[in-house]
């Protein structure tokens, strides 16, 4: 730390335990946070550029490589957009199998974030490995839950990072009902462990903060939003067809970031667990709603610090839902339906663990991609995260730099920002003047 003249500058180590490479910069002047920037350093990889000229059958495999934490989200948003362009809807059995694979991704990602990335902040550790020295049982339990998600993805998808079994129109191979049934004991045990973790998380202290952001989530029309949906629902009461996403959301490129930032009708907005939960609490399964009540959550949650509780509820839900699908699965008539190309544009959106993920493709009559657009959750959330940081900084100006930095880091991590998606280490700088 150096003190020069009237201005005070502080550089603290990078913020860790987020997916991707970025930083934060805060300027404090006369008790006001005059500038708050979430900086994204993650080098651009130009997916939207090189997708042009590729085949309409390739985006599920290609866009999966945008993010190793949520490849299934990319695969399914891509499938839906292309199927939409080609005028195809997959049969109900295949939709359910997609939902099952997606549950695997939610389980893996939420177990990782809740217990290994976020919980160390609450219990005062640098990370899960350090936390394991005193709380080995908690970390072992988290690893078992995470493993249940990965096993599910391996059985349905072929592997957990970048599953190989997904294709436009469905799957390459259908899992046998016996293979899915064999997952039952592991999923049931993980559900018990997730429920058992509720009291530990419920008794932690969460800073007070109520944020007014517009919430946006998919409206599935068939339960809690996940693998598909034709419309978006907002907390202001709008219902927007997915195809109209682009008329409401405009992306801006800001100088401090290699990612584009999205605004909904001009306003910062929030996608992800808080939005899904608050808009679709009624669609949760009874066991997930009970877990929410036991965690002390009302049907709406506007405190980003409590998002860890919401993620835990969604973890419970995903395990419960996976069990439901596994128990009912009797196979499907075909592994995939034929999807013939035509000159058209298609839109697709699904709920990645971190929130709404939108894809749009324009293809020509022989299936060559002419244009592609991908809007990941973190790009949409960035303005809202910055606005929350401003509130957090201004609410904690009495803290010294180190403590303030900790609070800001925690605030950023509550969003589980995926910077690999948005275009990974965060570096936090606080500049007090």
């Amino acid at each position, binding site marked *: 730390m150096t003190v020069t003249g009237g201005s005070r500058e502080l550089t603290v*180590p990078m913020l860790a335990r987020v997916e991707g490479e970025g930083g934060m910069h805060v300027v404090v002047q006369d008790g006001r946070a005059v500038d708050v920037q979430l900086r994204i350093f993650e080098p*651009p990889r130009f997916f939207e550029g090189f997708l042009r000229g590729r*085949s309409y059958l390739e985006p599920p495999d290609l866009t999966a490589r945008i993010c190793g934490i949520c490849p299934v989200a990319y695969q399914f948003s891509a499938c839906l957009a292309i199927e939409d362009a080609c005028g195809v809807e997959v049969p109900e059995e295949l939709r359910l199998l997609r939902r099952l694979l997606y549950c695997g991704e939610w389980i893996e990602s939420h177990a990782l974030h809740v217990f290994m990335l976020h919980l160390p902040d609450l219990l005062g550790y640098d990370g899960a490995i350090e936390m394991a020295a005193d709380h080995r049982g908690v970390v072992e339990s988290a690893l078992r839950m995470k493993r249940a998600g990965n096993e599910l993805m391996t059985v349905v998808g072929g592997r957990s990072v970048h599953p190989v079994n997904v294709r436009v129109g469905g799957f390459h191979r259908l899992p046998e009902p016996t293979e899915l049934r064999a997952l039952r004991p592991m999923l049931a045990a993980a559900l018990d462990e997730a429920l058992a973790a509720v009291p530990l998380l419920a008794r932690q202290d969460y800073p007070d903060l109520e944020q007014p952001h517009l919430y946006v989530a998919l409206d599935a029309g068939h339960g809690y939003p996940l693998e598909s949906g034709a419309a978006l629902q907002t907390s202001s009461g709008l219902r927007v067809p997915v195809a109209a996403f682009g008329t409401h959301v405009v992306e801006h490129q800001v100088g401090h970031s290699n990612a584009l930032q999205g605004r909904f009708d001009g306003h910062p907005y929030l996608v992800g667990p808080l939005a899904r939960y608050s808009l679709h609490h009624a669609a949760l399964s009874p066991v997930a709603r009970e877990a929410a009540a036991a965690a002390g959550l009302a049907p709406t949650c506007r405190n980003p610090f409590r998002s860890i509780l919401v993620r835990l509820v969604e973890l419970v839900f995903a395990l419960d839902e996976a069990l439901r699908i596994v128990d009912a699965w009797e196979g499907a008539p075909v592994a995939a339906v034929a999807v013939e190309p035509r000159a058209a544009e298609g839109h697709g959106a699904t709920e990645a663990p971190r929130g709404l993920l939108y894809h749009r493709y324009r293809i020509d009559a022989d299936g060559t991609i002419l244009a592609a657009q991908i809007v990941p959750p973190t790009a949409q959330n960035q303005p809202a995260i910055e606005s929350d940081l401003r509130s957090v900084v201004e609410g904690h100006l009495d803290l010294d730099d180190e403590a303030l930095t900790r609070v800001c880091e925690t605030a950023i991590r509550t969003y589980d920002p995926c910077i690999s998606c948005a275009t990974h280490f965060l570096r936090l700088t606080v500049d007090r003047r």
Partner: protein
Amino acid sequence: MAMGGRTVTVAGRAAGADPAAAEEVGRDRRPTLAVWKFASCDGCQLTLLNCEAELLALADRVRVAYFPEATRAAVAGPYDLSLVEGSITTAEDAERIQQVRAQSRILVTLGACATAGGIQALRNLADVAELAAAAYPRPDRLAFLARSTPIASHVTVDHELHGCPIDRGQLLEVVAAVLQGRAPRIPSGSVCTECKRRGTVCVAVADGLPCLGPVTRAGCGAICPAHHRGCYGCFGPQDTPNGRSLASLLGAAGMAPTDVVRAFRTFNAGAEPFRTATGPALPTSVPDAAGGRP
């Protein structure tokens, strides 16, 4: 230190660096592990966290000195083992990898990005400015190199793990081998040998599916053919690939020439045997009056 300009960040990142923690490490006899990220999707480093059954036992044997995705603790180098994910796509990263190498006793690269440039190396075959304009309204505000290059083009690499993503078993093997001071046992040969071993009926012969298995490095356990699809080459070229002859076989089997080119130009497009298997470049730039974004 001044407010976090990018230069500062690079130095800060590579230096890792908490002197108090460094002193503590002096008393800690465990070998140190560092995990570094360059342009990538995080999928390869996630593979380390996905070793659920082994992670805590591993953490007892090695000191996780630098792994920002998992911990905010950062111990200064040197490190006994550095795992490097991602490719070099910016001038800063080209500098940072030199600092990583200088601080690492053994350096192991993870995955198609680090070993071949990754899917982002598709830019090497295209007009990068035009690609950037398709994704960003103001590409002039971005800093990037025209080519995505593997780590071994910049520094000496001790071991390479292939795959997009890497195989968990291979990762554990290479870490165990480095700790035991022996050479890692990584299979050579093609995906075909793994299909034979697991008893998968050849999807190319039996079902006529296009398959890159004959030219692709073994290691995944031949997952795709077991899921009734041809291998799409995510482990990159095997040691003695005959890409050109497979390309002509695929063509003879009825695959359209553009699709043959596309098949070789994915996550390992930057690997020489795949890049040259099909001759001229893929027409990534479709003339489009509307420009990039739809």
